[in-house]
């Protein structure tokens, strides 16, 4: 009897808690669930910068909370529930693996708004957001194609998933455009974060003749390896990695979540928040292009900035036909651009890239 009473009250409390507590405090409370430590210098670090920007923007009107190193799965569900119970009005869950947990918990707290990064499942109180990093990759590809002397560009991939494959394709298309002889060497590290392995991968690529290293892993280890080798250029990933500028780091893709986080927090405060799918790029400021350093010749820098401007204002799409797939079949006709569905699920290389995507 006692047990069942407890459970009933528990279920009741779960249902009403969010409503009751949302009124009880006047500050807007924003929660952040992080997959790595905030000191990772990459993915989580940048999300935390976005959180700090929210605090700075709204001052005393908001309170932000975060939990770092949260494993995907039941731990993430517990952390989200805990934030909702503690009265969070808006919760950002910042890893793809939080997708199903976010949907589950959102169903239990209809009055709390959830924002899930990089996923594809939405609900009335769950939005998704992601960044068009491939736009930044196009600019990197352009600079890389122009700058390489060996015509070999090394690419450190994390896992063979659409996000990473899209970046490789985008970089390759634009490198090839300015340098028909360019060749990509791709190494899969099978990790998002393992500095020693990333450094090794970079060294191996450099030893095999690459003089440009692009990375889709989060640590600065490849930058350090490139600096060591000399005469190699790299690009910052996720954060600016400016400590390696002006060389080897000649530019970077910066995950700039701040404008989005501020806008969504504002929407919750104003009561105008709606569930939507956001996939922003350079134009909206979600993808930042770090300062192109003086190691890049002035004319190349100018072209890169022009490319950036044309992507930003929408006059140019990095995936514009004519393009063929690696197997020679047609991908995009002359002048056609890839739709978001194709981009989201991209699981093939474009024509010219050697090697197979690991299965």
């Amino acid at each position, binding site marked *: 009897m006692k047990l069942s009473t*407890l459970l009933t009250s528990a279920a009741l409390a779960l249902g009403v808690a969010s409503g009751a507590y949302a009124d009880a405090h006047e500050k807007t409370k924003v929660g952040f669930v992080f997959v790595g*430590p905030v000191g990772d210098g990459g993915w989580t670090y940048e999300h935390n910068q976005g959180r700090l920007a929210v605090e700075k923007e709204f001052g005393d009107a908001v309170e932000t*909370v975060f939990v770092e190193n949260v494993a995907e799965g*039941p731990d993430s569900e517990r952390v989200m529930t805990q934030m909702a119970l503690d009265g969070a009005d808006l919760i950002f869950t910042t890893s793809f693996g939080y997708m199903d947990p976010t949907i589950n918990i959102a169903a239990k707290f209809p009055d709390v708004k959830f924002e899930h990064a990089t996923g*594809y499942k939405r609900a009335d109180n769950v939005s998704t957001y992601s960044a068009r990093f491939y736009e930044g990759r196009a600019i990197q590809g352009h600079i890389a194609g122009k700058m390489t002397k060996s015509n070999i560009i090394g690419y450190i991939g994390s896992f063979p998933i659409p996000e990473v494959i899209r970046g490789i394709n985008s970089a390759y298309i634009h490198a090839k455009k300015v340098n028909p002889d360019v060749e990509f060497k791709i190494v899969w590290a099978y990790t998002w974060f393992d500095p020693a392995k990333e450094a090794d991968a970079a060294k191996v690529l450099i030893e095999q003749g690459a003089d440009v290293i692009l990375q889709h892993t989060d640590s600065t280890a490849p930058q350090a390896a490139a600096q060591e080798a000399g005469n190699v250029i790299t690009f910052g990933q996720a954060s600016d990695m400016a400590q390696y500028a002006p060389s080897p780091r000649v530019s970077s893709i910066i995950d700039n979540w701040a404008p989005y986080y501020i806008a969504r927090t504002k929407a919750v405060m104003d009561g105008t928040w709606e569930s939507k799918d956001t996939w922003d790029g350079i134009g909206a400021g979600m993808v930042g292009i770090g300062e192109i350093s003086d190691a890049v010749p002035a004319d190349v820098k100018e072209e890169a900035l022009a490319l950036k401007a044309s992507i930003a204002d929408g006059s140019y799409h990095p995936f514009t036909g004519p393009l063929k797939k690696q197997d020679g079949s047609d991908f995009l006709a002359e002048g056609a651009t890839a739709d978001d569905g194709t981009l989201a699920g991209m699981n093939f290389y474009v024509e010219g890239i050697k090697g197979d995507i690991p299965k």
Partner: protein
Amino acid sequence: MVRLEKRPQPSRAFSWAAPVLAVVATMIFGGLLFAALGKDPVASIETIFWEPLFGDFAFYYRPQLLIKGAPLVLIAIGLSLGFKAGIWNIGAEGQYIMGAIFGAAAGLAFYPEQSVFIFPLMVVAGAFGGWLWAMIPAVLRVKFGTNEILVSLMLVYVAEQFLASVSLGLLKNPEGFGFPGSRNLQQYASAHNGELIAGSGMHWGVVAALIAVIFAYVLLTRHRLGFAIRVTGQAPKAARFSGVNPTRLVLFCMGVSGLLAGLAGLFEVAGPAGQITIDFNVGYGFTAIIVAFLGRLHPVGILLAGGLLALTYIGGDIAQSQLGLPAAAIQVFQGMLLFFLLAFDLFTQFRLRFGQAEVI
């Protein structure tokens, strides 16, 4: 002159008092650490230990203790049998992964058929996967005398790579837009290991953990095999004279620990976690080793130790979000707790003597 003297009998009083003393010592030193980080030490400690059990939302956290603690207890019970007998399976993490993969694969093979036989089949497959993975070090030890600590540890890394491989290939959700990870078993009714009573946190894994505790208790106290395990651990030579077959004991202990670890993986993937992903494993297999020793390899002790560790995980996450403590500080705090628990255990076996050593 202070020296240690072995007690003729382990002290019953101290076996209860030592964990309490350890927790108190951890609170003091942990409090100092939190104060050094500029946080209110009393509030921090209270958040970690009190909040999940008796705070405003205890109705939610108490069931979470079961969810977090069950895999730890289930795995630790299996390990403790071997540890008692001097058989060192430290690769439970790998067996946990293989159990999850085998179990999930068995279920997904039937997708989208619905049948009451699917979940039981998955349980069998999960147990088999864990057992199989543990049999490799067991058979190698029996046949060639290789060190099972090493082989089982190596197999963890093999299993992790295999997990990445199936997440990206064999078990990848065909409707997942190319993202890694399997279908979510929570959305496949026949394969879902859901809560048995809504909101209670009780799923089949919790039930299995409790059954394992009872099973181990009975085995160790009432059964001949339990006797064989204890004797082998304490005096291997005497065990052989008393007719214990060491080969069968190794196969049994490794098999049971692998089987339970596999079950833990299966219940986790079919229930709280829901899907096979690259990062599916979160270290339960290693943490369970600590749980086994904290529980002094005793079934009831393991149950309590699993609960205590689960409490610090849950309380630690609450402290992170409510007080802004860094995750690293929580990790250090847990490390301290383990150190003190291990250190104070001394007094159950020994007592301090002051003064000159007697001349023997």
